């Protein structure tokens, strides 16, 4: 009945901590092992790793990370689905250390976890889906430089400790605390490399446009995290156009495929403009609003092309808005609104490349959240659940 499942670590499934019913009150080692134990192998054998070696936590490293979180090791940050494990400051610190984070990354990691656990993100669904979507984290504001993030050359790639380990800390938490182990609760058919780490910073210094978080009501001096359940970036090459329309027509082309998940599931997507492309677009006098509206207006699919041109009968698809026309020649938008296109400038200053990053669909909405309690201008001042009016 059904295909044979690959062998699973039964210990991993049973080790879901469901017999632990009390908070761990303070930094308490799970156990002690003989001095000289190969700790990297020990953590591998316990099933705590994303496949890469983890940094064995020490009392000093955990304490430093907890201190950077503001102390209170037992403070509950969130419960992480689908296992609903309790992410306390201490557990967050342990995963940060394992990922290789410096303590000063803590405010970003914490803000990102809070964002992921907000209801609109639907982390439960993102963790479990057969689609390959994985949270993409984009950081804005002064914290990027304060902690040494890379917003330039090779921004989606390797080589920067902050980018690499912040993204990795999120994934380790989703695995360990959230239980999102492949084949157990994470049913992603293919996965993608972003499931190791998927964290960038916007290149505000080089961008000719306002930063993303300022477009969304934050002050430039605030720092924010943006989380989108995302496919990998799809490269957009364009070396021939010298105006906004020419560059953006290539992005529209990348968007207008029948097989990206937005095409059949609506929702949100991201577009990352490389600095050369951004400069060309800015030279035409275009702003963020113009870019997002152009992309929305001039991308799309023919309805009939989405489902094999009638070969399998008529399809309605309740996942798409009712106002999309279900007629063969009707233009079907990639996402329902220009506001569902999240625009960033990032990458190195050489190279005429941008990227289209599809999302998962209407089932998850991206979340933008302030780091260290920052709120959009005009929002009430809130702390610890109470807001000054």
């Amino acid at each position, binding site marked *: 009945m059904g295909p044979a499942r690959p062998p699973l670590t039964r210990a991993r499934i049973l*080790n*879901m*901590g*469901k017999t*632990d*019913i*009390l*908070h*761990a009150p303070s930094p308490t*080692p*799970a*156990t*002690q*092992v*003989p*001095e000289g*134990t190969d*700790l990297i192998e*020990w*953590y591998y054998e316990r099933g*705590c790793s994303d496949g890469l070696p983890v940094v*064995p*936590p*020490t*009392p000093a490293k*955990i304490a430093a990370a907890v201190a950077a979180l503001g102390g209170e090791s037992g403070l509950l940050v969130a419960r*992480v689905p689908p*296992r*609903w*494990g*309790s*992410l*306390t400051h201490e*557990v967050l610190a*342990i*995963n940060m250390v*394992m990922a290789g984070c410096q303590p000063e990354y803590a405010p970003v990691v914490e803000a990102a976890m809070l964002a992921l656990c907000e209801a609109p993100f*639907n982390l*439960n*669904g993102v963790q479990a*889906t057969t689609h390959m979507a994985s949270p993409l984290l984009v950081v804005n504001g002064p914290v990027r430089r304060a902690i040494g993030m890379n917003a330039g050359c090779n921004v989606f790639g390797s080589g920067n400790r902050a980018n690499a380990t912040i993204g990795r800390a999120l994934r*380790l*938490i989703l695995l*360990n*605390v959230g239980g999102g182990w492949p084949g157990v609760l994470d049913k992603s058919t293919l996965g993608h490399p972003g499931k190791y780490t998927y964290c960038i910073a916007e290149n505000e210094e080089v961008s000719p446009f306002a930063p993303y978080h300022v477009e969304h009501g934050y002050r430039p001096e605030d720092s924010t995290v943006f989380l989108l359940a995302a496919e990998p970036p799809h490269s957009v090459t364009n070396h021939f156009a010298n105006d906004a329309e020419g560059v953006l027509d290539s992005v529209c082309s990348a968007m207008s495929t029948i097989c990206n998940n937005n095409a059949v599931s609506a929702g949100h997507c991201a577009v990352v403009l490389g600095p050369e492309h951004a400069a060309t677009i800015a030279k035409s006098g275009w702003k963020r609003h113009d870019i997002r509206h152009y992309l929305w207006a001039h991308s799309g699919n023919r309805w009939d092309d989405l489902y094999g041109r009638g070969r399998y009968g008529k399809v309605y698809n*309740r*996942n798409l808005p009712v106002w999309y026309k279900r007629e063969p020649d009707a233009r079907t938008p990639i996402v329902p609104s220009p506001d569902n296109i999240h625009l960033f400038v990032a990458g190195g200053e050489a190279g005429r490349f941008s990227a289209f990053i599809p999302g998962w*669909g*209407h*089932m*998850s909405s991206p979340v933008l959240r302030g780091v260290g309690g920052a709120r959009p201008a005009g929002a009430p001042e809130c702390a610890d659940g109470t807001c000054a009016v």
Partner: protein
Amino acid sequence: MKTMPVYDPRGVVEAAPLVISPRVKQLDGLRVGLLDNTKWNANKLLRGLRDRLAAMHAFGTTNYYRKESFAAAAAPALLDRIAAENDIVVTAIGD
């Protein structure tokens, strides 16, 4: 023997144990709810099941419900309504 500490990155799970509801003793006369999570073919499966079950049992009524989104939990208001309007429920599809 000298030792080194090792740590648990998982965090505890606090789940108050829940019990399933009492079973029904027979199916005739009951109100049956069908909850469709809108995934592909869930509707065909549920409608077929409804027809076959209704042919085998003298149900009171059968009521059909659709979730807003297949990837999120059903809204509490919808669950309250289903519980109020039915005695037994069948849902599909987790795939």
